[in-house]
């Protein structure tokens, strides 16, 4: 009964989405007020229906209702409750329901909070969102129905893949989807602006919170995924340039560029046409990511051809939205009035360069991701594009961007003042170069590149501190006064500085962890000792323990440093009973400056075990930095009471 309610709600949601996607748009075109006003109601009702559908599916999972094929295939009665719930989106059908739910919630936000929007604009934005929702609801209902029944119902389920039974991965998809789908709102605003032929300061102000929110969610989602990869996969890597990772990284790059170009549009009414294009591209890349991941085309072009129903459906959604929006762009963009003037060396100029490098980086990742597929289709030749490719082509594109961060933050709006910028950064440049030299000497590396990464981090962090210090006139006026100045700064200023500081932390983490990792792989028997990076580990042996739905072999390592007991690390190898698979659970001792990372492997010979020990310097800074960036994004969303958004 519950499942049928959910199914019905999903069908009604599709009808409402179709209504939301047609009449308001037609009404806005013909000046029909009543039709335009339908948008808000339709969005509210559609959100309610989608919530009911999602709740129904969640209930089926909680009750382990195995008469639903979806629950049977992805759940098990013994599974911990947390993973029963997160299992809802741990599969294709359920994750689509989550997708449409998030889309409906974003539309709800526009419908409820958008009372300051002109009626036409609101109708158009909600109309476009309705069309997108209709596409995905139809996709769900016609190719991936989560409410399909099994008769007779099986006794128990097949369980969720054990690798998904993990807190990091459980909450990774919702954040990623919040980011992907949030970009649909920006996209809808861009389409509305093209129809109306008007992009101005107000438009940028409407769009900014949605861009910022999407970016923040994407940042969090990607960071969660990479953190999970780091602790779950058992050799300390955290980013693999895998096509699936790239699928989420490309929208992030585009959203980052959009975030910066929207600032220029909002402040100076410049870069209008480019900002609109970016808004379209950012969402297109989200859709492309969905297509790549959902269609199976990544496994191989041929896997896609075997069961093309789903892939073709997404491809149709993709073509309709991207093609439609780009055609509209081609027709209407030339008529947008050119924006405010600015000198090449100015804050705007720096932001343009920021966009140039981010866009080139995004294009590079896109090429690297699609090239093997395209080449296979065109000529049948197979090539592999892996991490070494990206390290050669992507990293050099990011280095100038990172150098630019400091210059951009120091540059004034509108006018050229290169001398002023350079004189303010003189001291910092010196400090950074000295850092480079010291780090190079200290690490005794033949390559100066890792040390350069650390210097870059100092350069960015230093420029943040300089910028912030100048704003609040620290040490140039009484501290009380500085404090008051800090409190009066707009949220955007705190946001920018915090996010850029996070970037500096991230850069240091990436550099140090990739350049100065220590690895020891050996066989250890109970009582064996091993030194690594100033720690001594004593292997105390391994024993069997039972979990709720798995058995585990748990090793125990005593960690000591300078003769003192530091902690005990207990890595596990789990055997999940239902799916008959194993996972490794690394044990990690995290300090501010490094991770000690221990993995236990196969038993060999007489009571010995293969053991992998890693010392990963500054690796916590990678996620710390990402977290700071996301926090910056969140702070930017704070709207001062009474002030402009």
């Amino acid at each position, binding site marked *: 009964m519950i499942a049928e309610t959910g199914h019905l709600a999903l069908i009604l949601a599709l009808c409402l989405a179709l209504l939301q996607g047609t009449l308001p748009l037609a009404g806005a075109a013909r000046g029909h007020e009543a039709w335009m006003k339908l948008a808000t109601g339709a969005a509210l009702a559609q959100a309610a229906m989608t919530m009911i559908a999602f709740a129904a599916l969640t209930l089926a999972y909680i009750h382990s209702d195995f008469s639903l094929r979806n629950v049977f*295939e992805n759940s098990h009665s013994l599974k911990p409750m947390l993973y029963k719930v997160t299992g809802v989106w741990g599969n294709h059908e359920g994750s689509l329901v989550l997708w449409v739910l998030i889309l409906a919630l974003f539309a709800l936000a526009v419908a409820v909070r958008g009372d300051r929007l002109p009626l036409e604009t609101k109708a158009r934005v909600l109309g476009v969102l309705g069309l997108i929702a209709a596409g995905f609801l139809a996709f769900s209902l016609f190719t991936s129905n989560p409410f399909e029944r099994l008769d007779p119902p099986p006794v128990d389920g097949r369980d969720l893949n054990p690798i998904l039974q993990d807190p990091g991965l459980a909450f990774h998809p919702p954040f990623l989807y919040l980011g992907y789908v949030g970009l649909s709102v920006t996209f809808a605003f861009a389409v509305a602006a093209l129809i109306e032929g008007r992009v101005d300061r107000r438009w940028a102000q409407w769009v900014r919170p949605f861009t910022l929110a999407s970016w923040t969610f994407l940042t969090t989602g990607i960071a969660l995924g990479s953190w999970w990869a780091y602790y779950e996969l058992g050799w300390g890597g955290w980013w693999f340039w895998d096509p699936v990772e790239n699928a989420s990284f490309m929208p992030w790059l585009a959203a980052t560029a959009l975030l910066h170009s929207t600032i220029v549009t909002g402040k100076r009414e410049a870069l209008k046409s480019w900002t609109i294009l970016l808004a379209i591209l950012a969402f297109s890349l989200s859709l492309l990511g969905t297509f790549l991941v959902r269609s199976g085309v990544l496994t191989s072009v041929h896997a896609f051809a075997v069961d093309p129903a789903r892939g073709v459906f997404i491809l149709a959604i993709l073509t309709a939205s991207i093609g439609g929006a780009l055609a509209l762009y081609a027709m209407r963009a030339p008529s947008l009035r*050119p924006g405010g003037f600015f000198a090449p060396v100015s804050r705007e100029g720096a932001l343009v360069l920021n966009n140039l490098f981010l866009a080139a980086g995004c*294009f590079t990742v896109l090429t690297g991701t699609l090239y093997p597929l395209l080449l296979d289709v065109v000529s049948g030749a197979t090539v592999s594009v892996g991490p*070494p490719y990206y390290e050669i082509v992507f990293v050099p594109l990011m280095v100038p961007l990172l150098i630019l961060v400091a210059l951009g933050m120091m540059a004034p709006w509108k006018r050229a003042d290169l001398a002023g910028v350079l004189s303010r950064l003189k001291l910092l440049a010196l400090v950074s170069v000295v850092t480079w030299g010291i780090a190079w000497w200290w690490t005794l590396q033949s390559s100066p590149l890792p040390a350069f990464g650390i210097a870059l981090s100092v350069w960015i962090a230093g420029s943040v501190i300089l910028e912030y210090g100048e704003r609040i006139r620290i040490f140039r006026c009484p501290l009380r006064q500085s404090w008051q100045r800090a409190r009066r700064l707009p949220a955007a200023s705190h946001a920018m500085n915090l996010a850029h500081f996070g970037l500096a932390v991230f850069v240091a983490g990436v550099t140090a962890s990739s350049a100065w990792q220590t690895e020891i792989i050996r066989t250890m028997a109970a009582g064996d000792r091993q030194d690594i990076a100033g720690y001594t580990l004593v292997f105390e042996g391994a024993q069997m323990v039972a979990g709720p739905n798995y*058995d585990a072999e748990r090793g125990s390592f005593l960690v000591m440093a300078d003769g003192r007991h530091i902690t005990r690390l207990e890595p596990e190898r789990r055997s999940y009973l239902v799916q008959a698979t194993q996972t490794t659970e690394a044990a990690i001792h995290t300090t501010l400056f490094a991770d000690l990372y221990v993995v236990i492997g196969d038993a060999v010979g007489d009571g010995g075990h*293969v053991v992998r020990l890693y010392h990963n310097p500054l690796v916590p800074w990678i996620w710390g930095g990402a977290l700071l960036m996301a926090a910056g994004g969140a702070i930017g969303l704070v709207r001062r009471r009474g002030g402009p958004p």
Partner: protein
Amino acid sequence: MTGGQRRRTCGAGWRAMLRLLVLPGLLLLAAPAPLHAVEPDEILADPALEARARDLGRELRCLVCQNQSIEDSDAPLARDLRVILRQRIEAGDSDEAAVAWIVERYGDYVLLKPPLRGDTVILWGAPLVALAGGALVVFFAMRRNRRAGNGDGP
């Protein structure tokens, strides 16, 4: 050992797909296994040679995995390639010769960094073209902007 049946597959392909919770059908076909990659018995006694083997291995693809280097994969084929690579290096091959030896038998597909050849020119040229093309667009837009903005410029 535990009661669970141990299946060896290459993990990163699955890991990566799972990252976005892909294709439940495929998940049922092959379950992921923990990644162990390099085993102690493979490691060369000479740390310098082993370091070279590591660096080279990271650029060679595990042929039965998705986008995973032989260093990171625990598939039997990846292990074989690691062992072969180390044998070549111990026999005194240069880095180039050792890789060439493997490419000769497995084709360019084994290289995670595709070689520059006729049909990869676009791949390698893309970043440069994107940057140069973008720079040109920016340049002309700025010039037009300056002309148009002369009136209200500073």
